């Protein structure tokens, strides 16, 4: 799949030691091969841009954090993982994960566990489970230390229109 994907998400982060999960909602844009723009809208506006150059976070419109992938090489792997997970293209994931799939074509489930020396680091990720029909509907990320992320995707569509200029700018910001 090489087409851009847009949609909404509802993310529940259950961190060990916290009373209730942290819930955020927003929209996302996936441009395969370029990057991912994750716009949280509730409880407050913040934007995360992940490309192979690194992670950029904006809070209230101003830059909050900029992390180039040269600092943490695991980051570019993370990007690959996220991109593949969202686009449903699991082939590149086989290099770093052991993949077990079940279900049929329109109701499938894939479970990923990091391979020993994959560089992703078993410390950061214990397993990742994706469920979907036409697109990915549900992702559960178990970080192995008691923290679990559950993301539900809604209203996914293959984008018909081109990138908006501000979106393009966000994707290019981290480039040297």
């Amino acid at each position, binding site marked *: 799949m090489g087409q851009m994907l847009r949609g909404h998400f509802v993310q529940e982060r259950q961190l060990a*030691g916290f009373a209730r999960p942290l819930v955020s909602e927003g929209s996302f844009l996936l441009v395969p091969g370029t990057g991912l723009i994750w716009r949280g809208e509730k409880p407050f506006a913040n934007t995360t841009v992940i490309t192979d150059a690194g992670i950029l976070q904006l809070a209230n419109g101003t830059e909050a954090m900029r992390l180039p992938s040269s600092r943490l090489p695991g980051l570019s792997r993370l990007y690959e993982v996220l991109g593949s997970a969202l686009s449903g293209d699991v082939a590149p994931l086989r290099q770093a994960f052991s993949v077990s799939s079940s279900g049929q074509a329109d109701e499938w489930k894939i479970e990923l566990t990091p391979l020993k020396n994959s560089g992703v680091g078993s410390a950061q990720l214990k397993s990742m489970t994706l469920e979907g029909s036409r697109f990915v509907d549900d992702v559960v990320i178990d970080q192995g230390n008691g923290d679990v992320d559950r993301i539900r995707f809604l209203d996914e569509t293959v984008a018909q229109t081109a990138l908006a200029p501000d979106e393009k700018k966000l994707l290019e910001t981290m480039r040297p």
Partner: protein
Amino acid sequence: MMRVAQGLWLAAVVLACVYLAFRFDQGISFQSNILALLPRSQWDLGAQRAQDKFADALSHRVVFLVGDPAAEKAEQAARKFSRDLVQSGLVTKLTSKASGLEKIGAAYFPYRGGLLSVADRDTLLAGNEQRLVDRALAMIYAPGGIADARLIARDPFLLFPQYLMSLPVPQSRLAPDGDLLTVRDRGLTYVLVSAELAGDPYALAFQDRFNAFVAQDTVAMTKDAPNLKLLRTGALFYAAGGAHEAMDESSFIGFTSLAATLGLIFLVFRSQRPILLSFLAIGIGILTGFAGTLALFGEIHVIALLFGVSLIGIATDYCLQYFCEYFDPEARTSNERLARVFPGIAVGILSTLIGYFALLLAPIPGLREVAVFSLIGLAGSVLTVLLWFPTLDVSRPPVAAARALRLAALHWSLWESPSLRWLRVGLVVAAIVLGALGFMRLTIDDDVRHLQSLPQPLVAEEHAIEKLTGYAAGAQFLLVRGSTNEAVLETEERATDRLAAAHRDGLVQTFTAISQFVPSAARQESNRTLVRRLYPYQANYLAQIGYQGAPDPNPSMRAMTAADLPPNGPLAVLPLLDVSSDRHPAHIILLGGVTNREALAARTADTSGVRLISLADQWTALFGEYRRYAILLLALSVLLMYPLFVSRYGFLRGAKVLMPSLAAVALTPPLVALMGIDFTFFSAMALVLVLSVGVDYAVFCNETMGARKPITSLAIALAAVCTILSFGMLAFSGVFAVHAFGATMFVGILLAFLFAPASGDGRKREGLRA
């Protein structure tokens, strides 16, 4: 009396031989570090000491990049190379181990209370606490977030990860891959292997061992990876290249001048005895010079050796004076021969020794070594001539040299014959005109970058490594000093503020300082105070994210010091930057990509305790200073020699004896400038030699008269040819400094020879005395 003197000299020579044999057995260390020749800074011992320490530490570093199109092959080869290096004992430790931020983070973590990134510090100072709160929220909610409950308990606003991420990375282009640092460029993956040498990078023996090891291991690595590419840089490689060049040249020059000298002597005298005896005198000179220098200095510098080997040219002057007496039918016995030339040789050697003595007064270690070598060596040669030649050279072989003598007589005619007056005048006028022309072209060039000629392949590899790793070589840096380590850190922080501003203005690209990794205690205390501004926001924030339980920051209240950190990864550079000696704390701030040195110096000038040092400019200034020194020494030599000549020749005549040399010294730089060679410190050194040799020629002329004059001028002509053959060879050197020296000698000796008889002959002196 004579016997006793001969016996004593024999004993001295034997002693020298035994001493040298003993030293060779123990292993002689040849110094090849050019810096060892330079004077130590006298006006600022502290700065000099700190710089020396830094230069020493830098020179012990060696950097390799092991590259291959296949990443696994490159990594495998790099690991093997690293293992072998450690096993060989040639390095004390490897400095190329990557260290993930986790390990470094663990070391910093207890002290996080006093650590803030520069950006966060500025935000809090400006009163924008809300921004940090918002950012913490964003980080917690974002996908792939770094936050977890444990961290939030101890660092609620996630300030510590920000600090870690803000640490500068010296080798910015390299990325950690497991425990290796790698970079990919144009289809090749390069892996870094760097280490600290266990031996002296300037000792020839260690250089050879290390280079042999690298060559051997490269063969082994290439077997498994045929497309392997190995890049290297480090002071050791430059020094080895330079030393070998100097040694090769000195053997080439030594051999050629020896061969030419001996060939010439044979041609003129058609007998082996002059060759054998000259060889003996020269050989003993070099032997005693070598032994004396080793005894006094403990080691010998290859430059001193290079000059010493060229000693051959000068020592032959005295031998030739003696042997040309073969042409004198009235000098039948060896004692008579010696008696005739003794005054000339005596005055000549005394004046030359005075000339070299002036070199001893220079505050330059290198010059002193050269002076000692030359003084002892020349004295040894002359003592051999004076004490042993008469005994060894008993009968006189038949020599016919009528034609040569006729030619030699022409030299006198040039200056004495009335009919050749036009030629004399023409010669002097031509010399003055050329001199004036050359004077207009004469430029002084002290730039050390022009004096050195670094081997091109090495320079190319160094640039490649710099480009690939982003690591700057350390030719320019700030030296920061203070009364205590804490004072130095605080001064550094002021300096880095200036540098950050300079960076924004494009004056400097990168800078690395210890204080960027180890803030001063004052800074850490200030950070602790600033963080307290976030406390009012804490309750709301924790409620918002639903954090149960009480936060438990409990960081260490003790200020962190460099000793608390492991020297891994980006911290590996820290020991290099600390150049403190006991009771004199000092740090270095490395600078990279300086575009405007003066502007940068102006920016940092008003911070006391901080000084911008540019090594190349410093050496250039030193070379300039010592060029001026050499010229002063030249003047001093003349002044010291004059009383000797006055005592023998009287005031006027004494001055006339100096004329040919002074004319040569004055005319040579402009004439050499016409050849396109700028005037440098090395040209000035050559002039010192030209003065001594020229004075010898004039003295020989003034000690001869009547029928002996052609004999003397023949001897001088032969001496000049031999000297030009030996020093003229230096003009072919690839090293610009040596090339300039050789060209100056060539022209200077030629002029001194040409003008020598103009100072008159011995008859006038006899007339004076009578």
